[in-house]
């Protein structure tokens, strides 16, 4: 589904990603872990098409398309979803209008008709239940005045609405209490199918108690320095990141 080959990326002339190689297949859950500043969020942002990062080398194909040539909106329409570490507040734009615009753009891209208002509201209701998000939140402006936990739940709600092929969840667990973490993880698990895949970016092992990864990668200094099964996360939890940093 996603193939990353020797990906290098800069911000303001400073190289952050220094040759990432990664392949993700349908049905898989990959966890990317690593210390602060290792490039985890940069990788997510580059894949989603943030313009402030400059890709200097390498290639990324997503379902056989050259991902790096696509605009951020086309990446989304092709089925890529980024769950933001810091979801943005958009005053004045209601969740309903925001989601209606997003869902209909996605449907247009797939050659489907626009949803009728009744069908759209029905879909909203179902997905809200699925991710256990408070109904009142979707009547408000996008993320405006939401708590940290509500914002993260809202990301999972949007993911449920858009039904992506590949979800990249950037530190979705940061700032969550244990209840919110469970709800977010449940949402991700319920949305998992044999045809989609996820990349879970996290700093701590905690989230991986709830979302069990097939592969764990450790990103350090802009490169994936170690890849293994889920047991790697436990090892990290025990030893910390120092053994990676010290090049053991």
């Amino acid at each position, binding site marked *: 589904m996603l193939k990353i080959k020797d990906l290098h990326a800069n911000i303001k002339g400073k190289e952050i990603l220094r040759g990432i190689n990664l392949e993700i297949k349908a049905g898989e859950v990959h966890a990317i872990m690593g210390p602060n500043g290792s490039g985890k969020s940069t990788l997510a942002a580059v894949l*989603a*098409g*943030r*313009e402030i990062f400059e890709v200097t080398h390498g290639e990324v194909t997503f379902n056989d398309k050259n991902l790096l040539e696509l*605009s*951020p*909106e086309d*990446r*989304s*329409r092709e089925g890529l*979803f*980024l769950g*933001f570490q810091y*979801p*943005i*507040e*958009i*005053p*004045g*734009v209601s969740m309903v*209008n*925001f989601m209606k*615009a*997003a869902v209909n*753009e*996605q449907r247009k*891209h797939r050659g489907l008709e626009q949803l009728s208002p009744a069908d759209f509201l029905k879909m909203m209701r179902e997905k809200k239940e699925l991710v256990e998000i408070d109904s009142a939140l979707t009547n408000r*402006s*996008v993320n405006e005045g939401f708590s940290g936990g509500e914002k993260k739940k809202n990301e999972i709600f*949007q993911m449920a609405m*858009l039904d992506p092929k590949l979800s990249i969840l950037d530190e979705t667990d940061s700032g969550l209490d244990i209840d919110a973490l469970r709800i977010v993880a449940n949402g991700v698990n319920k949305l998992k199918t044999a045809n989609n895949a996820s990349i879970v970016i996290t700093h701590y092992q905690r989230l991986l108690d709830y979302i069990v990864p097939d592969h764990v990668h450790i990103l350090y200094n802009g490169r994936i320095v170690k890849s293994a099964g889920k047991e790697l996360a436990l090892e990290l939890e025990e030893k910390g990141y120092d053994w990676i940093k010290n090049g053991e």
Partner: protein
Amino acid sequence: MSKTTTISVKEELVDLYLSNLDLITDRSSAILNRGRQAAIENFNLLGLPEAKSEKYKYSKIEPLFTQDLEKYFTPKDITFKIDDIFRCDIPEIGTDLALVLNGFYLPKGDKLKKLDNGVIYGSLAEASVKYPEIVSKHYNTIADNTSEGLVALNTAFIQDGVFIYIPKGVEMDRPIQIINLMMSDENLFVQYRNLVVMEESSKASIVICDHTLSVQKFLSNVVTEVVAKPNSNLELIKMQNEHNDSAQLSHTYVHQQRDSKVTTNTISLHGGFIRNNLNVLLDDVGCENNSYGLHLTDRTQHIDNYSFIDHAKPNCTSNELFKGIMDDQATGAFNGRILVRRDAQQTQAFQSNNNLLLTADAKMNTKPQLEIYADDVKCSHGATVGQLDMEAKFYMQARGIGEKEAKLLLMIGFAHDVVKKISIEPLRVRIDELVDKRLRGELSRCHNCPMHCC
């Protein structure tokens, strides 16, 4: 050798008054004629606002008057069948309708209507004859003829406009709508006057829509006086939708008495040159004033909102929110003055002005001005001039929303902050639609209305 003398615009206007004095006064009642002499004398002293005046720093008034404009002192005969061509769709919300064409009240039936509940609305000229006691008591009592030359000019010349009277204790359950139409085969200068009297404990909503229906140049200089008596509640919504060759000078005076509530919301959708002056006097305890404004300004349009909230008495609250979106080479200004007098303890006064500039050429000047002489007050003001939030734009794109649509949604969201203050739901929905269309670059005329307003 010939010698040319140039006479000033001011002198020309005074001459115009003197040479048409009979025409003006013969058609008017004694009440409307009463203030003319003093007004023209004031105007002769004050003249038009000058460029060096701080209050008019960003809006040059005189050039508007040097255009070649016709003035009429009797309604000009215009082939215009209201019922055929004007079916405004705001009446879907069930409004009582008052039409003004080029400054003269245009009856669809009677020039003045009296509803069963005692509400009177219609022509100001007619009202000053039929209800002299009401008009006489309020007309020209709060407009400032002594320091504002344009208001003095209006008082000297006006012959008609709209009169609205809400009797004591009456609560209107549907809005009254005033539609001001400009339509002519010549360039035109128009002045008229509106008077709104809210008796004790009355409640009403008034919607004023300004439209240009032909392509000629128009200049209008309009004064609206609002008297809000104790415990009354008025919502006054103004929709400005005129073409790029139009100029509008609008002066609204609000006099609030004990425990009254007045909300004004000025939506400037379109217009070549707009200057709105809003003057509010909170003249007794317990008043609440809300002044809102939104402008969508593009190409070479110019908008200037001036407001003056005078907290003269204790325990009053005022909220101001003005927002604007400027595109292309548009220019604009906001000047919000709040005065809290020494006796006005426990005043709460809040003001905010936020502007979005879409291009590097658009220009906005904003000047909050608080003068506080009381020591137990809560006041705040803030002004911002900025660009669209790129983080928010990216967030939307990351959900599949195209860049253009994302920008539009952000602008609509920005504008909605002001529109959502409108309490009449169908009207709020309609105005949201108009704002949406305007920002999408579609004509912002009402979709059922066959007139080409801009």
